[in-house]
């Protein structure tokens, strides 16, 4: 029997556990990418089904209905309307939450109108008993004209049954479960007569939505069937009411809820978590825990990784035949890779926390608690999500601002999010803090270093709020506003979901940013170990000459002198010296300058760059960690390069500067203009320069 390929689309409201079903079906067999041209995440997975059928499973963005209000939702409609799309599903699986069937079924009835074979998954069925819910499945299947699969991803129940059902997709009914055209019979009759070969509901969606639809000339439809905007809106409302009537009637018979049996953990938790004092205290406590753990718990694996790579570099140098390429490996590539791997523990921790906060349903409570406060600064409660996920990476954070309905609030959120300390700044902070802040504990509990890190995070957050306030006052934008946020039920995060999320995100960091860091370290090594012929080749004789005059005989001293003379006259030394006048007032030498400049490709490059420059600059191959090398760096007069004033100046510069090309690119994309990213670049970097300047001049 030959292998057959089918495409399955998972569709559902947000918070129905759609992604859990996806993870259960595909395991780690998934690819995350983007839809062409837009930055909506596209998740495609693969699953082996019975009867030798292989399924491509598409996890579509969560949507409340087929009336799109964001580009994420547009993706769903565009796919479902375009039969020629490579990913047009053979079968749609609509995932619903048993506790929220009424609302979840709205989308289901719309999908049914598209006449795609549809399976209804009722998820979280482990909640039925505690909530006193019973379902009449045969009745519901008959009314909804579908097959129902009861699933509990938490207990791992129903997935095999779902697979079996998918295989038999050809036997599914494609009949709509209600006739929505009764809302305006005359209008829909006319429409049907004009386009007899098209689905009525499809036509209706084309008329009301802003989607690309290849098969039909939408202008033709629009011109002959145009209605005023408010008439269309009224019809859409009538349609929604009609659908709810059908759903409410169906569930009146098909679903019984015995509230006497219901235990209500949700309202108890809500009372505490949204309490006017405890609510904020708990939120603050959680933030504190996150920052402590990032700094404290990840220090052990980080030191281990640092040491391992130092050992590895020394080993490579000793074992490989001596030569240029061996130098590249031991001084360029190994420290370069080390500079990436070392951040895995911190980044994994960060994504772990963010993922748990999202999965558990707590994030919505924070949105609820913070909305009024944030509004004062021109933000929305929903800005909390971008601001918190900005601690991981500004790019997905700026994209997550999409669900803010008000354009002004959304714009301000996108403009200030890059102030939030992202995971790329973390390595820079971590190493500088370790150099300038003593390893002490406050009250025997909080580490002083951890507290400093927290202050830096607060500084970034404070700056974000402050600039939002300024922007709110100065931007003259009139927008109609509304705000709706779903408050999902509390859930214990599923280990599998969290683990897959953490692994995927960490992998993206290592292989994405990692490649840039590695490429840059190869180039930096080359620039640091080669130079214009004249001075560079003669380095040895010049230094020896000088040593003779000064009557220096210490071999170590002479070797050191040769290395640093070489570095100074290498290409990188020449570039560094030429930018030194600009950065000197901030307390940086030319080596730090090079690191700061290369940070514009990716901030975390800073540490790797310094590691590469210093390892080229030191003559001995004996094992040394990045931190030790930085600590040992001194000016000719014996003063430490990484002293307190320089350290603080660097921390402040990295806290405020807009140093990320990719973030600028995403802001351009989301705002559709170069104006906003350029404003960000100039203002943030200018502000960073000034604060770093003041800090160094005051502290030195």
């Amino acid at each position, binding site marked *: 029997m030959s292998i057959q390929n089918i495409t399955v689309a998972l569709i559902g409201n947000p918070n129905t556990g759609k992604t859990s079903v996806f993870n259960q079906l595909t395991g780690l067999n998934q690819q995350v990418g983007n839809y062409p041209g837009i930055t909506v995440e596209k998740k495609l997975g693969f699953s082996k089904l019975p009867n030798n059928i292989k399924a491509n499973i598409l996890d579509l963005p969560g949507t409340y209905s087929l009336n799109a209000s964001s580009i994420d939702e547009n993706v769903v409609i565009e796919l479902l309307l375009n039969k020629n799309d490579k990913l047009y599903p053979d079968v749609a699986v609509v995932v619903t939450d048993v506790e929220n069937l009424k609302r979840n079924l709205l989308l289901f009835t719309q999908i049914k109108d598209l006449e795609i074979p549809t399976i209804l998954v009722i998820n979280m069925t482990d909640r039925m008993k505690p909530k006193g819910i019973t379902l009449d499945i045969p009745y519901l299947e008959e009314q909804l004209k579908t097959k129902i699969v009861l699933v509990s991803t938490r207990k791992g129940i129903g997935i095999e049954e779902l697979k079996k059902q998918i295989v038999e997709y050809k036997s599914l009914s494609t009949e709509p479960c209600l006739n929505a055209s009764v809302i305006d019979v005359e209008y829909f009759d006319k429409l049907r007569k004009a386009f007899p070969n098209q689905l009525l509901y499809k036509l209706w969606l084309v008329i009301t939505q802003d989607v690309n639809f290849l098969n039909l000339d939408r202008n033709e439809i629009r011109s002959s069937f145009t209605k005023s905007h408010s008439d269309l809106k009224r019809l859409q*409302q009538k349609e929604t009411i009609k659908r709810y009537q059908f759903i409410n009637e169906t569930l009146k018979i098909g679903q019984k809820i015995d509230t006497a049996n219901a235990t209500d953990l949700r309202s108890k938790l809500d009372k505490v978590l949204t309490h006017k004092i405890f609510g904020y205290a708990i939120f603050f406590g959680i933030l504190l825990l996150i920052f402590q753990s990032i700094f404290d718990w990840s220090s052990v694996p980080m030191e281990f990784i640092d040491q391992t790579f130092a050992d590895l570099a020394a080993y490579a140098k000793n074992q490989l035949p001596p030569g240029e390429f061996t130098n590249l490996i031991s001084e360029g590539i190994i420290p370069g890779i080390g500079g990436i791997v070392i951040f895995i523990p911190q980044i994994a921790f960060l994504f772990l926390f963010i993922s748990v906060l999202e999965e558990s349903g707590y994030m919505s409570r924070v949105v609820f608690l913070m909305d009024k406060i944030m509004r004062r600064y021109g933000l929305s409660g929903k800005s909390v999500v971008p601001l918190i996920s900005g601690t991981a990476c500004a790019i997905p954070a700026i994209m997550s601002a999409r669900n803010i309905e008000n354009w002004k609030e959304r714009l301000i959120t996108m403009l200030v999010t890059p102030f939030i300390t992202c995971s790329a700044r973390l390595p820079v902070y971590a190493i500088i803090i370790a150099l300038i802040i003593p390893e002490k504990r406050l009250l025997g509990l909080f580490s002083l270093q951890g507290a400093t890190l927290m202050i830096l995070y607060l500084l970034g957050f404070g700056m974000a709020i402050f600039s939002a306030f300024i922007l709110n006052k100065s931007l003259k934008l009139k927008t109609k506003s*509304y705000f709706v946020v779903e*408050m999902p039920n509390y859930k214990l995060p599923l280990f599998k979901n969290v683990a897959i999320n953490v692994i995927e995100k960490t992998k993206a960091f290592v292989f994405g940013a990692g490649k840039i860091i590695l490429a840059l370290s190869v180039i930096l090594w080359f620039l640091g170990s080669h130079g214009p012929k004249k001075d560079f080749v003669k380095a040895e004789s010049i230094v020896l000459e000088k040593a003779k005059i000064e009557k220096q005989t210490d071999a170590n001293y002479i070797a050191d002198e040769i290395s640093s003379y070489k570095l100074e006259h290498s290409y990188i030394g020449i570039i560094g010296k030429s930018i030194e006048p600009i950065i000197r007032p901030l307390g940086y030498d030319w080596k730090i300058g090079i690191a700061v400049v290369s940070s514009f490709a990716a901030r975390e490059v800073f540490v790797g760059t310094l590691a590469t420059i210093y390892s080229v600059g030191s003559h001995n191959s004996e094992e040394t960690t990045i931190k030790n090398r930085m600590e040992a760096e001194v000016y000719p007069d014996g003063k430490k390069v990484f002293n307190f004033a320089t350290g603080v100046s660097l921390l402040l510069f990295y806290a405020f500067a807009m140093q990320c090309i990719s973030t600028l690119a995403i802001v351009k994309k989301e705002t559709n203009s170069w104006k906003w990213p350029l404003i960000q670049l100039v203002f943030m970097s200018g502000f960073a320069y000034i604060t770093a300047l003041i800090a160094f001049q005051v502290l030195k």
Partner: protein
Amino acid sequence: MKTTVDLLPIGAKATILNVDLDKIPLKLLEMGCLPDNDLEIIQIAPLGDPIYLNVNNGSHLAIRKETAREIEVEIHEK
């Protein structure tokens, strides 16, 4: 008694009579804020806004006061 959602206290239950269709976004209707559906005030945020509702027995959402003002309801007597 007729009133609007922004004036209800925590714990109040009511039936939606009318929503101002020009001021309420479609998305809110799709989440269940339709005439004849029931709603309950679960919580009001510490600063009096937003309001956390359970609409149509299961759809939990939070809306701002300015939106709540446009939803007319009939309070259930206790």
